[in-house]
């Protein structure tokens, strides 16, 4: 039986998670607007609709745990402490960008809080997460590594090599699949031999797996917390498959017309912010102030990023090597 104190604590925690999601949602909307206005070059892969996976998982991690994400990774960077301003400045090629404008939308990284990168070669970062978990065991730190990846990544070799090695070495790694039902423009089910692209592969590596509602931030937090507890205790990896949905297309201006209207409608009704807001209402808590703060935070971030100086061309010749330089010959 939940006590009033439990309910108050839960409401406070959920409100905090809600606000993080609201900041991410507005940052993604701003990124889209700035892209359409020509202020973001190249490409974007927005995570609007998938906020609960990043925020819920982050809530279950220690500050020194490791996170590896994909090119659809704005939500993971922000959930691990990157500011919307630094992210948007990166997208807008400003010198104040999170990666000094050398990474761009697909490579947001916040290494000082354990967010060790966003990788744009599908599946490549799963072995890296395995390596970070291996490193944690070698150093005896009880840190956990989490690899977030899309459903499309489950059909590339690196996914399978990573799962096998993590299982054989029993490493503290959690594999979190953000199954948004589409690998780019193609329904994942039409190119995958199993119904649950990540969870159904677990048996091949003798790993536990769980399919979770990826739009319910508390359910994600709970599932990741269980997997992390197990990993930290030395009981090896877990595969989580979080079912979720993109609100935008795959990238840039993709209108995602390949998705049936009734499917889109059903998933939009299950917006992670709507779900959290409804739960908070049940708990007697309004989100109005959090929404307002999120709105203001992102509006200020947009203005600050716009006002920041462009990347200095001299930066092209820094950071290749550990000494800060780029010299390749004498």
């Amino acid at each position: 039986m939940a006590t009033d104190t439990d309910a108050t604590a839960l409401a406070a925690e959920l409100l905090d998670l809600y606000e993080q999601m609201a900041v991410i949602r507005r940052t993604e909307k701003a990124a889209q607007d700035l892209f359409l206005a020509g202020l973001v070059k190249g490409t974007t892969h927005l995570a609007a609709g998938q906020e609960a996976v990043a925020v819920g998982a982050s809530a279950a991690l220690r500050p020194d745990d490791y996170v590896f994400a994909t090119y659809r990774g704005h939500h993971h960077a922000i959930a691990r402490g990157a500011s919307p301003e630094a992210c948007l400045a990166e997208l807008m090629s400003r010198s104040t960008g999170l990666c000094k404008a050398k990474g761009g939308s697909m490579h947001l990284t916040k290494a000082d809080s354990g967010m060790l990168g966003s990788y744009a070669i599908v599946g490549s970062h799963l072995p890296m997460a395995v390596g970070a978990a291996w490193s944690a065991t070698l150093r005896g730190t009880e840190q956990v590594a989490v690899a977030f990846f899309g459903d499309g990544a489950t059909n590339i070799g690196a996914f399978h090599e990573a799962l096998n090695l993590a299982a054989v070495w029993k490493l503290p790694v959690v594999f979190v699949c953000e199954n948004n039902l589409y690998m780019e423009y193609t329904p994942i089910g039409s190119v995958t031999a199993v119904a649950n692209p990540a969870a159904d592969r677990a048996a091949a590596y003798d790993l536990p797996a769980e399919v979770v509602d990826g739009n319910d931030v508390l359910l994600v937090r709970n599932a990741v917390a269980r997997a992390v507890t197990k990993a930290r205790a030395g009981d090896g990896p877990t595969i989580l498959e979080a079912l979720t949905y993109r609100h935008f297309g795959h990238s840039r201006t993709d209108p995602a017309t390949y998705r049936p209207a009734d499917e889109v409608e059903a998933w939009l009704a299950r917006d992670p912010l709507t779900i959290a807001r409804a739960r908070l209402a049940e708990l007697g808590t309004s989100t109005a102030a959090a929404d307002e703060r999120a709105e203001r935070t992102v509006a200020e971030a947009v203005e600050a990023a716009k006002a920041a100086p462009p990347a200095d061309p001299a930066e092209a010749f820094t950071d290749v090597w550990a000494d800060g330089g780029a010299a390749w010959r004498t």
Partner: protein
Amino acid sequence: MADVTYRESVAEGIAREMRRDPTVVCLGEDIGAAGGVFKTMAGLYDEFGPRRVWDTPISEQAIVGAAMGAAMTGIRPVAEIMFSDFLACCWDYLANEIPKVRYMTGGQVTVPLVVRTANGGGLGFGAQHSQAVENWAFTVPGLKIAAPSTPADVVGLMASAIRSDDPVVVFEHKGLFASKGPAAPPDHVVPLGEANVVRRGADVTVVALASTVPIALSAAEQLAAENIDVEVVDLRCLVPLDMRTVLESVRRTSRLVVVEENPYQGGWGATVVSVAADEGFELLDAPVVRVAAECVPLPFADALEDEVIPSTAKLADAIRRLSSY
């Protein structure tokens, strides 16, 4: 002191670093109790045990990808890719991930790892186990590349590679494993990017790397009898590329030959001669010449393989022609 083999120097070089730094950890296929298929890891498992020397499945992506993740988080991994041909199985990590992650994060992370691999031909292993692929790595900004030619350099370059905060690919030449030379002195360190003038000569500069260093030295011996005085520069590393030493040598000799085991098409020698032509044109009295592998897959039979890869005779012919230009 008795001479040692190149093969045992690989294990010696790694062991010295593992003794001085507990964060140095090895991983690869068959490197544990088996000691590596070329026995270049012999003795390490016995000395350091399974927490420092890790056998992996045949999963090149997992090996190099895990090494990268570990290197980003406080470990100095030494990953073995059994044959350099297999680098193609994990090329994403060598081409897209390891060399770029520091740059594209604006310097937020470093990747202090070593990928070691057995490279090169001459042993009749056929087209998929014989290639000299140092030029593959040379196409990617962000990788350092070492390729030792002597047992002492194996130890000295391994020390620098493992201590480097940058990713280093170490190409160990299969054809040199049985070769012998003086053992490395204690605490021997050869800095990355310092070429070695291994033979002084006045007439022609020959720039060589790994297996082509002994070829260059034997051609030089042969040509000495013909009054052609050959200088041999052992590059030791492709990145950093010690062009200063090459150009200083060309200043003395006015003639340049590059001998490389990778194919002529896309070989590293093309970069060396382009820098020489660009910055050393006034120093040259003759065209620059490249002796490289023929542009075909490596064939199996000795008679065919010998036809394709550089030899003392081919190099000596090229030097003769150039010196009479």
